[in-house]
């Protein structure tokens, strides 16, 4: 959390810095953690599309990686992966 601003720092209720919610990490919400087995991944991009955060990064070659800073552990990616390349494991274990 950044330092709370005083009224003197505020004017209209406008946030000028686009997309600054990246500073707010939601990874701490997670109870279960998705773990991707890159060897099984077929680069279908479904997990990238379905991830609500988005916390699945699409690389140049359409392989993906999970950004645990934001992943809330919903498990959609694991449930939808057509080749079962993603497993949900207990946070802090996998």
């Amino acid at each position, binding site marked *: 959390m*950044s330092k709370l*601003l005083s009224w003197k720092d505020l004017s209209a*209720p406008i*946030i000028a*810095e*686009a*997309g*600054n*919610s*990246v*500073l*707010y*990490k*939601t990874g701490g*919400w*997670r109870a279960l953690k998705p773990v991707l087995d890159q060897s099984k991944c077929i680069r*279908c*991009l*479904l997990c*990238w*599309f*379905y*991830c*609500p*955060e*988005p*916390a699945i990064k*699409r690389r140049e070659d*359409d392989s993906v990686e999970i*950004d645990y*800073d*934001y992943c*809330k*552990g*919903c*498990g*959609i990616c*694991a*449930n*939808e992966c057509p080749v079962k390349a993603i497993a*949900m494991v207990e946070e802090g274990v996998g």
Partner: protein
Amino acid sequence: MAVQIKTLREMPREELFAPGHRLCAGCGIPQLVRTALKAVPGPKVVVTATGCLEVATTIFPYTSWRVPWVHNAFENAAATAAGIEAAFKALEKKRGVKRPKVIVFGGDGGTFDIGLQALSGALERGHDLIYICYDNEAYMNTGIQRSGATPRGAATTTSPAGKVIPGKPERKKDLIAIAIAHGVRYAATLNPAYPVDMFNKIAKAASIEGPTVLHYFTPCPTGWRSDPAKSIEIARLAVLTRVWPLYEYEDGVYRINVLVKSPRPIEDYLKLQGRFAHLLQPENRWMLEQLKRDVEENWNRLLKLAGLA
């Protein structure tokens, strides 16, 4: 002509919706927002009605938006968007300001109920905007109260599964028919389990000058009492059981985009959601039968409209 894609790979990479938002784990709204911001080309402005999307993505001092984004109030997203559109039209003429496309996101409460009048006005006046309702079938932001979009039989906190009245007794409004009745040129339903279909429809809407209305199926694990991991599975089942037909209307022509020839039993869809659990009890069978009739009638109606009956 709108860009149309065939595979997910063709979907633009640029993310104009940032992570770090506070939507629930397993929420179905971001898939819509991310896709819309990819599918609408060029400069754009987003207007959002009060609701889950608004509160969870703009908690001061953080925003998840990388496009200009405006929230005014609950019932007036379409009117606010109309004002923005009208302003840019005037400024374009007078000062050569480049006119962005205006995209509106409203929940079902903000669209079907409290915002319907403003939406009706904006559609009738023909503003150049894309109105997308993210429909999670109840007022989820305030704690799961029924809306005009809640399907028959669903339990919410204001249509509870009681001993006498098992869930919401009334059927769901038909938003697309309401939109079409206003003379919009394009209207369509969207579902996150069908990404390419969704992208293409939004792109098509964006290519049309004037108002278009899109109706998006939005899984809500919190309000539906479902497993967050199964949000997309539920969305897919909604289509495969004919609960959520994927179709579009374009200049007088109806097309069913996913023709479900042999539907899965509706129970397959219902049993994944706590809001429908009571419908599977024998004493509430009558309500379930009504819901089934709603689904069947709607499907048959669409078949006729699409010339497939």
